[in-house]
């Protein structure tokens, strides 16, 4: 018999509403799964047993009293530890914030709580979301549930690993260059980056403000869409928050893809992609064609330059955003004779190697004499990337590519060479530069049994068609909510 921890959000919601299961039972099954897997996975930095149990008890009581139930009533969710949670330690994976307890909730967290979700805890990440493996966490790496000698991807690796392992039913991640989609791909779950501005960034500890976006990680496409319906919405506390209509994102699920125009991005689905990844990708494209989609190959020439532009723009923005960690108002302080000495010592002690590298890279790219050659030029390339997408979407409804050029790699195998780590994000970065939505859906495994993700991209505010195509890819792939080996111990004979 399988555990309640393996239910999807849709199944658990039906069970809770029908009275066949309680929020408390569901939460305890989630805690049990965490107890079984955390020693190996380290998906969580903090598990909030006490408040989660109180919230689950309150949810059951509200239901018993006939009070109205929110759309995520009783659902155990995990939050990436770069979103602030009132009264619950938030570190962003950095030693500079060790012990920091925020005085308020991020807007996305408030939305989850208001919808009835139970916050299980805070998940591990690359420090300040800078990385593709969680190995840059200041608190040790997480492991991949499919093979614990391998990385779960990153930076939202803890969230993806928790959802794959069943120690959370859904999770929030943040995506600046692929940090939701890439770990979802490596962990065999669904990860979705919404259009820039759909989910408030208020309370998301900023990495690169023009690229950062919060989104859901889940086991099914439907669950991702349901979660987005809860967390998307205008927020006056985020000046870049979208002010238009927010539709029901599940509206086109199950409609199929007949007549939809699907463009395969040539630059992202050939050279540099592992043959086994490419083969699974091609099969999924074929299944879309069999489903009636009109498939064509599309060329976006600026894609080759997107990665380079990203590794100037993101560090430039991070160097400005992380100036706030100065040892004055919160977090770590290492004493010094002057404010400047104190700040410089604090930052040297508190930031890990990758964050230090990126701050220095960004500082350099913005410094006098180099601004035009690097940052200014990167901003122009960003314009060309946006123009390429705009042109492509005149002829197709969605674009597709593999999510990651490779499957989960071994822990420690890429940490010595920062550039080799950056190249892992080549397929996901363009959507961040353009502010457009993207989703990764599992479509198969390689010869080593490691998950392979399929990426779908859509124009700005194209979430409904994005989920529509994603649901068809999911259905045709017969992935069928496959579970990783690490949870097998919980499925006793």
């Amino acid at each position, binding site marked *: 018999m399988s555990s309640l921890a393996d239910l999807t959000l849709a199944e658990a919601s039906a069970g809770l509403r029908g009275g066949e299961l309680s929020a408390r039972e569901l939460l305890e099954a989630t805690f049990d799964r965490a107890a079984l897997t955390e020693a190996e996975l380290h998906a969580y930095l903090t598990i909030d047993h006490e408040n989660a149990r109180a919230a689950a008890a309150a949810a059951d009581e509200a239901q018993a009293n006939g009070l109205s139930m929110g759309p995520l009533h009783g659902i155990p969710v995990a939050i990436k530890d770069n979103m602030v949670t009132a009264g619950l330690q938030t570190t962003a994976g950095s030693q500079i914030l060790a012990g920091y*307890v925020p*005085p308020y909730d991020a807007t996305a967290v408030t939305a989850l709580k208001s919808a009835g979700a139970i916050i299980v805890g805070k998940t591990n990440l690359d420090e300040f979301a800078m990385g593709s493996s969680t190995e840059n966490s200041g608190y040790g790496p997480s492991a991949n549930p499919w093979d614990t000698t391998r990385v779960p991807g990153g930076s939202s690796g803890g969230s993806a690993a928790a959802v794959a392992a069943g120690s959370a039913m859904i999770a929030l991640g943040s995506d600046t260059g692929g940090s939701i989609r890439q770990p979802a791909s490596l962990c065999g779950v669904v990860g979705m980056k919404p259009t*820039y*501005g759909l989910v408030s960034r208020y309370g998301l500890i900023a990495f690169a403000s*023009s*690229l950062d976006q919060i989104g859901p990680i889940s086991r099914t496409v439907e669950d991702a869409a349901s979660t987005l319906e809860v967390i998307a919405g205008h927020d*006056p506390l985020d*000046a*870049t*928050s979208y002010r238009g209509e927010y539709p029901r994102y599940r509206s086109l699920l199950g409609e199929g893809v007949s007549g939809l125009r699907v463009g395969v991005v040539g630059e992202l689905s050939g050279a540099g992609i592992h043959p086994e990844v490419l083969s699974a990708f091609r099969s999924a494209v074929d299944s879309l064609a069999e489903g009636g989609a009109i498939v064509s190959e599309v060329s976006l020439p600026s894609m080759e*330059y997107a990665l*380079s*532009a990203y*590794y100037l723009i993101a560090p430039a923005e991070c160097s400005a955003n992380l*100036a706030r960690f*100065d*040892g*004055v*108002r*919160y977090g770590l*302080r290492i*004493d010094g*004779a*002057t*404010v*400047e*000495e*104190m*700040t*410089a*010592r604090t*930052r*040297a002690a508190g*930031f890990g190697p990758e964050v*230090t*590298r990126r*701050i*220095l*890279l960004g*500082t*350099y*790219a913005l*410094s006098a004499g180099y601004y035009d*050659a*690097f940052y200014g*030029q990167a*901003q*122009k*390339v*960003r*314009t*060309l990337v*946006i123009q390429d997408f705009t042109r492509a979407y005149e002829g197709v409804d969605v674009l597709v590519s593999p999510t990651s050029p490779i499957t989960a790699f071994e822990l420690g195998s890429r940490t010595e060479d*920062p*550039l080799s780590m*950056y190249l892992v994000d080549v397929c996901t970065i363009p959507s961040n*530069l353009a*502010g*457009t939505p993207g989703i990764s859906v599992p479509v198969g495994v390689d010869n080593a049994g490691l998950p392979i993700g399929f990426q779908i991209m859509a124009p*700005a505010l194209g979430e409904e068609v994005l989920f529509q195509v994603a649901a068809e890819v999911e259905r045709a792939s017969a992935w069928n909510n496959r579970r990783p080996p690490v949870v097998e111990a919980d499925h006793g004979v």
Partner: protein
Amino acid sequence: MAIDIDIAYVARLARIDLSDEELERIGRQLGGILEHAALVQQLPTEGVEPTSHPLPMVNAFRPDRVVPPLERDTALAQAPQAEDGYFRVPPTLEAE
């Protein structure tokens, strides 16, 4: 193209106090990364406007409603050092 960086100067600008070995190592790594990043200079961009933000947005106004600010004690609760309702820091200038 080898890119030479005055890494000690950049670290000073960024207010990060690094040892000579760290500076040497990071300087070398950044040289490699910048070589790759310099690809952006190969694309012809004459007449292309820079993009600083993905979506066209101007003047995001909100109602000017007065709400209570964070309580002073709450704001100071996470401070490494606080005194008499203020954040306490070392002197800005070195003593003569």
